[in-house]
């Protein structure tokens, strides 16, 4: 018996919400990046699931997932670079303490 598509999408939605929870509820910059990676992974899982269950034979979903993974790698590199710069300036990576621009 194969898995129906809504179960896969529901699992992916749960993964996305866990990532969103990490982004919104943690105060540490690296946790925010971890959450963003989890959300991107959930989106990729949806691409693959929709490709697998679509009536068309073109592998567009697979291509999209591959490009999305490459772009996520670039995003992680630049984001972690920013975390290191922020640490050098403020000696902390807690985002609630980066308040120099606060009015």
């Amino acid at each position: 018996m194969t898995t129906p598509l809504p179960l896969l999408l529901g699992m992916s939605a749960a993964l996305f919400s866990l990532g969103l929870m990490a982004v919104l509820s943690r105060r540490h910059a690296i946790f925010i990046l971890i959450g963003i990676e989890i959300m991107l992974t959930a989106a990729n899982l949806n691409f693959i699931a929709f490709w697998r269950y679509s009536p068309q034979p073109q592998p567009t979903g697979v291509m999209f997932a591959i490009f999305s993974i490459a772009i996520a790698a670039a995003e992680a590199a630049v984001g972690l670079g920013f975390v290191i710069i922020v640490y050098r300036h403020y000696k902390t990576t807690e985002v609630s303490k980066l308040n120099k621009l606060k009015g």
Partner: protein
Amino acid sequence: MNIAAFSLLTIFTLATAAAAALLPRLIHAALCLALSFIGVAAFYALLGAEFVGLVQILVYVGAVAVLIVFTILLTHREDGKGVSAMNWGGVAVAIAVFDGLLWAILKTPSLMGATANSEPITVKQIGITLTAGYMWPLQCTGILLTAAFIGALILVMEEKR
């Protein structure tokens, strides 16, 4: 993809992702994140996209998770407390978003009848499709990756005075 494999993998992936989001210690969260990426790669393999699963393991587990661990080593000061307070408003928003997504999925009747009818894709097919129809995005991705990595290097270089 049969239902038993799906249940096991769902439990594994969601548990490790929840650990990555909730564990107080940063380094434990990063290692749980790597485990949850392996779970997602297994999903790809079971859905017939083995190559994407391998790319996922190579890029996410091999590069992104290791990069996160290195950043933790470079920036984290172990000050004993380790845990920073949770913001419960964020948890509520995440639960609301999950409910909204679930509602949208359950309210779409055409999803229920969808059957898995794409054949598992081979690496050869992926290569042909990439070089035939996706040449322009492929080159752009190459330029983007080069620019991003050079940019990240320049960002973190020590300033010499």
